C-alpha cells in the first residue's frame, strides 16, 4: 500500500530484510514531486533549491534531491522512526512531514536573499495594514498575490511604476544592505520607505512584485559579498556577542595592534565576562557552563583562533551543547543595564 510505503521500508530496514532495492527512492521522488508542486517549486528551476539543471524533469536534480532527502528524512532519523513505528505502527506521516520541512529548509538555503526580502516586504506591509496606513486585498494573511493599497485607492501601481518610484531607494547602499537582512530593523526600514512613498502618492503594489524589485538589486555584484557572509547558519558570531561595547577602532586594536595592548584588553574583557556570569546567572549549572564557555573562547583565542570566525555552531560542537544554547548563554552575559536602556528605543521604533 502506497500510504504505508515508508513504514514498510523502515520495518524492512529494522528486520534486516531490506536488500538495497532502490524502489524506495522512486517512492521518495514521487512524494517530493507532490510536495514541490504544492509549494510552487515544481515548475521553477532547481536552482531555487540550490541544485543544478534547467528543470526537475530534464536533469539529475530530482535524483540528487531524493538521495539527500533519504539521508535527512530517513537514514539520520532511523532511531526516531523505529521508536515511532514500534509504538504507533506507522511512521509515514512523520516521514512526509519531515520531507516538507526538508524542502522548506532547502528553499531557504537555496534562495535565501529573495526569501528574506519577501519576508521583510510582507512584515512591513502587515504593519502598514495594522496601522491603517494601507489596506490588503484580499484581507487576511498576506501572501505573494496580495495587493496592498493606500487608503482610498483601488488600483495598484504597475511593476514599471514601482521600479521608477523606488529607484532612489534602490540606489541607496544602506537600503540595499538592509533590505535582505533577517532582523526587525530591516522590515521597519522597508515599512518607513513604503510609507514615505504612500505619502508621496504611491497607490499600491502587488506584494510579490515589490519584493522582486527589491530582491533584484541584491543580486548586484557588489552586494553578493555582503550577503554571502550572513548566510552562515543564521546564527551570530561570538565576537558580536562578547564585545558589545566595542567600536571598530577597538576591535581592530584587539586583532592587529601590539601584543601587550591586545593581551591587556583581552584579559580585561575575559574578567568582565566572568564577572557578569557570576552577577547575572543564578543557576549554578548554567553559570558553570557559561564559565566553561568563556574559558574555552579565551583558550581558542590564545591558540590563535580568529575570533571573527568563531561561530555559535562551532563553539556548540566543541562544548557539546546546542548552537542556540550557546547564543542564549551569551545573551545571559549581556549587561542588564544595556538591556534596560535598549527597551525604550525598541518601544519607540
Amino acid at each position, binding site marked *: 500500500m502506497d500510504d504505508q510505503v515508508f513504514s514498510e521500508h523502515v520495518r524492512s*530496514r*529494522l528486520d*534486516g530484510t*531490506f536488500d*538495497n532495492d*532502490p524502489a524506495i*527512492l522512486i517512492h521518495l521522488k514521487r512524494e517530493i514531486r507532490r510536495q514541490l508542486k504544492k509549494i510552487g517549486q515544481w515548475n521553477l528551476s532547481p536552482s531555487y533549491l540550490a541544485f543544478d539543471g534547467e528543470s526537475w524533469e530534464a536533469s*539529475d536534480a530530482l*535524483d*540528487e534531491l*531524493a*538521495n539527500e532527502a*533519504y*539521508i535527512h528524512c530517513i537514514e539520520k*532519523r*532511523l*532511531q*526516531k*522512526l*523505529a*521508536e*515511532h513505528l*514500534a*509504538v*504507533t505502527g*506507522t511512521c*509515514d*506521516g*512523520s516521514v512526509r*512531514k*519531515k520531507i516538507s*520541512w526538508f524542502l*522548506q*529548509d532547502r528553499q531557504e538555503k537555496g534562495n535565501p536573499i529573495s526569501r528574506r526580502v519577501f*519576508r521583510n516586504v510582507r512584515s512591513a506591509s502587515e504593519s502598514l495594514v495594522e496601522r491603517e496606513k494601507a489596506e490588503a486585498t484580499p484581507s487576511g*494573511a498576506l501572501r505573494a498575490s496580495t495587493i496592498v493599497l493606500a487608503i482610498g485607492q483601488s488600483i495598484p501601481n504597475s511593476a514599471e511604476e514601482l521600479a521608477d518610484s523606488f529607484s532612489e531607494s534602490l540606489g541607496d547602499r544602506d537600503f540595499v544592505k538592509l533590505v535582505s537582512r*533577517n*532582523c*526587525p530593523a530591516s522590515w521597519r526600514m522597508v515599512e518607513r520607505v513604503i510609507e514615505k512613498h504612500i505619502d508621496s502618492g504611491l497607490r499600491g503594489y502587488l506584494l510579490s512584485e515589490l519584493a522582486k524589485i527589491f530582491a533584484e538589486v541584491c543580486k548586484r555584484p557588489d552586494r553578493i559579498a555582503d550577503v554571502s557572509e550572513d548566510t552562515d547558519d*543564521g*546564527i*551570530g558570531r561570538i565576537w558580536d556577542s562578547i564585545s558589545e561595547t566595542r567600536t571598530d577602532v577597538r576591535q581592530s586594536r584587539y586583532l592587529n595592534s601590539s601584543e601587550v595592548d591586545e593581551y591587556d584588553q583581552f584579559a580585561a574583557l575575559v574578567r568582565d565576562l566572568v564577572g557578569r556570569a557570576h552577577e547575572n546567572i543564578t*543557576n549554578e*549549572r*548554567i553559570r558553570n*557552563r557559561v564559565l566553561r564557555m568563556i574559558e574555552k573562547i579565551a583558550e581558542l583565542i590564545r591558540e590563535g583562533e580568529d575570533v571573527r570566525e568563531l561561530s555559535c555552531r562551532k563553539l*556548540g*560542537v566543541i562544548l*557539546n*551543547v*546546542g*548552537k*542556540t*544554547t550557546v*547564543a*542564549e*548563554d*551569551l*545573551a*545571559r552575559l549581556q549587561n542588564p543595564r544595556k538591556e534596560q536602556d535598549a527597551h525604550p528605543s525598541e518601544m519607540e521604533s
Partner: protein
Amino acid sequence: MKNLFDDPNFREASKQNAAMARERIAQLRWPDMLSAGDSFVFTESYDLPVRWVCLVAHVDNPLLWFLVAADEYHQVGTCDIELPESHPLAPLALRCKVGFWAHRDDLNMNDYLGKLEGDSVLDARYRLSEMVLGKVPITEHGLIAEANDDYSDWLAELMEVAERIESRLQSEPVVLANATFDLSWSRDPMVEMRHSEAASLAADGFGAQKSIQLPPATRLPSKLPGRLLLQRDEETYDLVYYPSPENESPPKLTFANTLDVRTGDWKRGADGVWTWSQPLGVINSEVVLTLGVERFKVQIA
C-alpha cells in the same frame, strides 16, 4: 538514476545504523516511576514527527507531570531548547511553550518512547521557570524564528494537538454499566449489509456455505462512522468493527487493559469486517480500551 544504495560505504553504515536502532527498541522499558525526560507519543500526533517529554512534576502532586512537545522543525524560538548536534536524537528541539499536564495513570506503556537523556532536559526545566519569571534570554535567532510564519504555523499546529491530547486524557472514559451481550446487534442495518454481502459471496462459491453462528455482542457507543462491537467468545472478547459503506479502516487500538497492543493489528475479513488480532481479557470485571481518540470502559456483569 543515481542510487545511494550503490555506495558500499553507505550500505555498511546504514546497516550499522539499523542495528543500533533495533538495539534501542529492544531496550525500551516502561519505567516504574516517571522522571524528567520520559517521552511519549499520543494517538493525536501519530502522523507527526513529535514526541512529548515529561519535564516537571506538579509541586503538590508528584504523579501529575507537565509534558512538552519535542520535534525536528529546524527553527528554534526563544522558548525552545535545542539538543546538541552530537545527541543521538538530534536534531530535536523541546518546545517549552507547547505542553499540557497529564497524570501518571493516564499515560500508558504502549505510548512510551523511552527517556530523553542529557542536560537539554534540565535546560528545558529551567526555561519553564525563566518563562514564568519573564527572564528568557532573548537572542537574534529566537526572534528571527518567531517572526517566521512557517514556524508560527507549526507551533500553532502543535498547540492544537496538545489541547486535544489534554482534553482526551482529562475526560472520563465512556462507561458501559453492565454491558449486555446478546444478538440485537446483528439487526443493525450496517451489520446486515455486511452479512448479506458475505451470504452472496458464499452463494457464488467464494466462502463457506454453512450458516454463520453469530456470537453475543454489545455495541460500543463510538463516534466512528461504522459499528464497533465487543463480541463474547467464551472467556475472552473480540473487538470487531463493521465499517460504513465507505469501507474505512478503524483507528488503531492504542490501549487495552490486558494487552500489549503494539503486537496486535486489525485484520480484515472477506466481508470487509475488521477484527482486532488479539482477544481482549477482563480485569476487575472491566474491559478498558482506547481506540483512536475514544476511550471505553465496559463493565462485565
